[in-house]
């Protein structure tokens, strides 16, 4: 048996705090934006634009992206030379770095936000224009002459909820037990488990699907594909993820709390159930919800395993089921333009679900683990004494 070390609290931060607590010792620097620096910046930008526009107009090139890139490069050149003449080499370096860092971040944010905006506008217009129907109708009418209001992703929503729910049932208890073990034990077995959990978090999604297909679906031939098989595949993805997250949350439960309970004579399992887990409650909920959000949109694991179904199938254990991510892939594969449009609508529903889960996790995680008030008998005793 491995040595248990109940008092180990590495300062592993939770995955929760949205804002970094301000360091009280950090001095505040007042940054003033002088007129000259604004003039240097704006002047080079305008000059570069003028030069590039002229060149492009004279050459007769019509390439908006190329124009933008050349403008940016010319701007950097002009601004660099200007700063070099007026502020010296160091001044030029730091100013150019500021410009490049801001523009690099802007490029990344633009790309990421463009995806979200496209899904919101292209998909949201589909899903919300057919608001109630799109969320409960099934897909049997797709492609026929039926009105578009008869088409929806109801079966996919049911399937996703059931499959993810089953995966949560399978993985969360194991993940919490494993995390408890990893936090409290040291030794070769614990180290092996920890590194395997680490490694498995990066395993490709398609491998989980392939494994469950070979292991569960293929031996059962036509009856193999079901919501249950999809839930198994999602569990393979979710187990390492949830274990890592739970481990971080449990590790920040103060060791003094655990030691106090042990010193009072509580057995280890009671300490775990009555002290550690209740203290980490909000953090655990947060971790689980984030893992659900990550797993909800996974497509590759379920591709071979869920089967897809245009009709409602409420039973995950028999018959093929539908799934939001799978439905997007299916709709998208069809040449029918209506199907592609509905794929965007389904994508919007999926992103909506994931965002709601994320916000829920943020909301729950707002209270830091370990700071939560734990009602131990000792606290009540001192309070009544002091009164």
């Amino acid at each position: 048996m491995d040595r248990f070390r109940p008092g180990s609290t590495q300062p592993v931060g939770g995955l929760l705090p949205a804002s970094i607590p301000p360091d009280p010792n950090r001095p505040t620097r007042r940054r003033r934006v002088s007129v000259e620096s604004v003039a240097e910046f704006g002047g080079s930008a305008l000059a570069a634009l003028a030069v590039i526009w002229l060149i492009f107009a004279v050459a007769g090139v019509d390439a908006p992206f190329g124009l933008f890139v050349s403008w940016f490069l010319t701007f950097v050149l002009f601004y660099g030379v200007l700063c070099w003449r007026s502020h010296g080499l160091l001044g030029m370096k730091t100013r150019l770095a500021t410009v490049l860092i801001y523009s690099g971040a802007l490029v990344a944010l633009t790309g990421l936000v463009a995806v979200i905006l496209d899904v919101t506008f292209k998909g949201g217009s589909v899903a919300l224009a057919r608001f109630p129907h799109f969320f409960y109708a099934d897909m049997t009418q797709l492609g026929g002459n039926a009105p578009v209001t008869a088409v929806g992703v109801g079966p996919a929503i049911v399937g996703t909820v059931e499959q993810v729910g089953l995966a949560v049932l399978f993985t969360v208890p194991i993940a919490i037990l494993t995390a408890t073990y990893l936090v409290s034990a040291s030794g070769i077995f614990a180290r092996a488990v920890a590194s395997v959990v680490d490694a498995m978090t990066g395993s490709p999604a398609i491998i989980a699907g392939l494994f469950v297909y070979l292991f569960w679906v293929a031996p059962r031939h036509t009856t193999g594909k079901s919501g249950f098989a999809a839930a198994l595949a999602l569990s393979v993805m979710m187990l390492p993820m949830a274990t890592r997250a739970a481990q971080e949350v449990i590790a920040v439960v103060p060791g003094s709390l655990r030691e106090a309970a042990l010193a009072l004579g509580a057995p280890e399992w009671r300490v775990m159930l009555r002290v550690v887990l209740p203290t980490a409650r909000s953090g655990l909920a947060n971790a689980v919800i984030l893992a659900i959000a990550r797993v909800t949109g996974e497509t590759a694991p379920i591709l071979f395993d869920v089967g897809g179904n245009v009709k409602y199938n409420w039973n995950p254990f028999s018959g093929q089921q539908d799934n939001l991510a799978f439905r997007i892939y299916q709709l998208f594969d069809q040449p029918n333009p209506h199907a592609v449009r509905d794929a965007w609508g389904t994508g919007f529903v999926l992103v909506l679900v994931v965002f709601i889960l994320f916000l829920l996790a943020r909301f729950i995680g707002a209270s830091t683990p370990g700071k939560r008030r734990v009602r131990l008998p000792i606290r009540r005793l001192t309070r009544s004494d002091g009164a």
Partner: protein
Amino acid sequence: MTIQAGPETAQTPTEPEEVPRVLRSAPSGADRIFRLVLMASSAIVLILLAAVTAFLGVRGWPALREGGINWFGLHWSPDSGRFGVLPLLVGTWAIAIVALVVAIPVSLAMALMINEYVPRRVRSWITAIVDILATVPSIIYGLWGYELFSNWQIGPARWLAHNFSFVPILRSPDPGQYGKSVLATGLVCSLTIIPVITSVSREVMAQVPRDTCEAALGLGSTRWGMITDVILPFSRNGIVGACLLGLGRALGETMIPVLVLSANNILTGSILGPNGLGSIARQITGDFVNGSVIDKSALVMAGLVLFVTTLAVTTVARSTVRRAGGKVR
């Protein structure tokens, strides 16, 4: 000890040297069961890893036996007995490298901007946006890449091919088309790994002792000087780990290559244009269910290669980040 024993110690030689006493824990029966349950549930992860490796290995073995050394050949068509996994392997890596080349500078810029440039109020907002974007499913990026981005990049890609065709990887593609290329796939993949690299490297950069940064500024360093001389050297290992983590993510990406890439599984040097290099995950998704027995076996073997590669990359990445004092989601 080099000091000779004095008369006092010589007189009391029987005093035993002080050793920490050994505390033996004597767990009760319930606790023994509890520990056993914990260990048993921990073992499930190990069993899972062993089962996945064993299943893929056993199913992939026939292809490897039949193909032999030709398994690493140049052309992929298992049904005719040629298991050239090289176009798939090279394509998978090419996509990941394109994604990293774009994502690393941009993510580091974003991490530095969040930590060093923007006011604290804006900082928590941008961090939240990056975190929420990290949860967007990759099929959404695939959808976006196929429908919109693959077409947007045609113009610049054509320009690159026309003006830089002396660079081998930018040779213009055979059919004269520029959509659905390795370049487009890699660029879309970079969007999925930007949040990962940003949040991990931001975390590591925040561990740099603030005093040292202030000392550099106090000695007259510019902000860029502080970044190059204090922040980057301090967090170098963590940044490398973050990039490796992004590499692992990009190698294992499935839905983006499936939707965006159009491949013919031949080994070409160009990253522009369709019908060139393939991708392991894409090939498994496309061919597995309807393939012949030997085709399936070859695909499973390719999957095993992918699995082991990403596992190795992720393990190295996480231990690097952990040693640098960061944390990984």
